[in-house]
């Protein structure tokens, strides 16, 4: 027993381990200060009544949760957040894949095309959102003007003025910004697949679809998993696009959890309500990450 403890101590506190701890220390301090402390603070806040200065004034147990969850609007907003994320991520993945396949083909001007595709991703999200706000302007906007002059739609809708068009308009901007990331990540994965596999498949008379489904897709499976997980996290928390385009309107029709958290915390100073919503968001995204990592590592082991 004593030998075992000495051996454990030696393992955990030898000169190499000490150096490792020393090197890890700054990262641990930064993580504890800037990640765990805010998470724990927000979690605590969800169980307290807060004042206008975000200070916790009285412990209320689960009252903030029951109050929030008995409000039908909370469930509407949570459901909309999930719909928003699902639609956006699926579309970004599909378009990203198609663009990656196009960019992976050898042709003149491929480098320029790759550079152009990255522009929406490289631009700041608020700037892109403001640009689209002008595009959607009902009187001077490029979109409605184009629809009118081409005769495609003589009386186009007010994109940001009605619930469904506003939701479509917002989600399109999020998709437009996110596609280049997906495309580039998929492209990087595709370029790591050996050309020999495609050549052998061609010799065996395999067609394009079969190459895609049996060589390309399995070859980039892990990259697709990671990229879609990241995209889910970013899309679920995409505050800028919605807030700049509609501020959650019309009549709350484009509000998702993250925009409502902002409103509760910084417009109405209801930090306890915001903390409950932030905690729910944390649970949803953590759950999603766990599912993804289980699938990822299961496939790794296989």
């Amino acid at each position, binding site marked *: 027993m004593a030998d075992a403890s000495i051996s454990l101590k030696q393992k955990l506190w030898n000169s190499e381990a000490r150096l490792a701890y020393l090197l890890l220390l700054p990262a641990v301090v930064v993580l504890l200060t800037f990640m765990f402390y805010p998470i724990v603070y927000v979690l605590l806040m969800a169980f307290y009544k807060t004042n206008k200065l975000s200070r916790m004034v009285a412990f209320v147990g689960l009252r903030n949760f029951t109050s929030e969850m008995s409000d039908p609007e909370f469930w509407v907003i949570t459901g909309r957040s999930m719909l928003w994320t699902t639609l956006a991520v699926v579309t970004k993945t599909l378009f990203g894949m198609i663009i990656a396949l196009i960019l992976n083909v050898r042709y003149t001007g491929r480098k320029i095309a790759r550079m152009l595709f990255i522009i929406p991703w490289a631009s700041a999200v608020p700037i892109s959102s403001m640009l689209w706000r002008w595009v959607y302007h009902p009187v001077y906007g490029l979109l409605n003007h184009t629809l009118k002059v081409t005769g495609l739609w003589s009386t186009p809708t007010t994109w940001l003025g009605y619930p469904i068009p506003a939701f479509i308009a917002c989600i399109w901007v999020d998709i437009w910004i996110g596609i280049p990331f997906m495309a580039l990540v998929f492209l990087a994965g595709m370029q790591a697949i050996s050309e020999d596999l495609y050549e052998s498949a061609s010799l065996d008379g395999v067609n394009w679809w079969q190459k895609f489904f049996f060589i390309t897709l399995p070859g980039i499976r892990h990259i697709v998993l990671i990229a879609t997980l990241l995209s889910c996290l970013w899309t679920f928390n995409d505050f800028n696009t919605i807030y700049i385009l509609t501020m959650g309107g019309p*009549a709350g029709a484009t509000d998702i959890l993250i925009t409502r958290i902002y409103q509760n915390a910084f417009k109405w100073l209801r930090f306890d309500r915001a903390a409950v919503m932030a905690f729910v968001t944390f649970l949803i995204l953590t759950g999603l990450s766990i599912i993804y990592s289980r699938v990822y590592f299961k496939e790794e082991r296989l």
Partner: protein
Amino acid sequence: MKRLKLVLSILIVLLLAAGLAFAGGQKAAEKQTVTFFWAEYDGLTEDYRASLQDAFNAAHPDIDADIVSTDWDLMYDKLTTSIAGGKPPELSVIGTRWLLELMTMDVVDEVTQYLSKSTVDNIAPGAMEAKLKGKLMGLPVAAGARILAYNPNLTTTVPKTMEELREVCLKVNNPPKVYALIMPGKLHTELTDFAYYFYAAGGNFFKMEPDGSYGKCTVNSPEGVKALSFMNKLAQEDKVVQEGYLGLDRMDSHPLFYTGKVAYTFIGAWVESAAKNAGAPFQPKYGQIPPFAGQKQKPLIITDSIAMFKGTNLEAAGTFLDFFYKDEWKAKFDEAIGFPPVTISAGKLPQFQTPLYKILGEAALNAQGWPLIEEWAECSNIIFNAQIEVHLGKKTPQKALDDAAAAIDKLRGK
């Protein structure tokens, strides 16, 4: 020996530095510091801020005024953060409607305690929106009633009632060349447009209790329903408002007026400078926002105040405000931002006798501000959404406002 010399030299340098810092601290301690969060209103220049600060510091060597320029949109965040951090400024420009929240936090002080009598007596009584339970908790800095502006190239009629406005709008409206009226249908920051019609119908957002507090929400009163029905009629049935109004907030809509495409708009004091800056092909003319037939004219007035935050240097802060509120500085400030003066003496100066200021002055006589309740930001959002639900055809005006009033009462525990 060399090492000893080095150590001694370092010690001497450190001692000298500590001594100098102590001496500097002593000198600073003799001076009282006044930090002032200064809102960057349109038209105010950095030169003005700097010259006010320099002039005050030169006139009062015992006080060190630090005027901190702050973007108006960031002011609330900056202020709440500094309060939460335990270091509020001595003075800050605030939206008067924030005052109750600040009072709940117990961070603001009554300003009249630290001002000279002549400064207090020189404030126009109508501008003292921040007078709560007999105590002036914020000194008005900018107060502007909302008015009707019109394009004389499209119309010369100044309607006397809302009903007359509708009649004129029906005649003037000729889309897409000319729209009769601006009606922003997308949330900007506040509920201003509904308030124009609601106040014109004689409405009040809350029942006033005998003790002066705000009771149950009365936005669903007959006046509220009348106002919202009228707005919806103008927009959805008569279609006399700008195209795509539900997708345009105030900042998107007003430029249409400046281009000369719209006959009427309800707007604030900034209209003249904004039209000029936009290169408007016409000189706007002004009138009062008309009441509904049988009602008294009651436009919306928005006021900003200077609040004094509890601390040690409030006597010095009062001295600064006495200095700033002299015509030499305050009138220049009012002229730059385009709002009518809040001081009686500045109101008599020749530069404030133009047609616009005349109309603004008249409007202020009967104007009404926002309700001073802590939860107003959230209440305002609820009412705005109710208004939009009516425009979208989801609810009738009565149903939408009943739901809004119920939600507000629940929120306020009434």
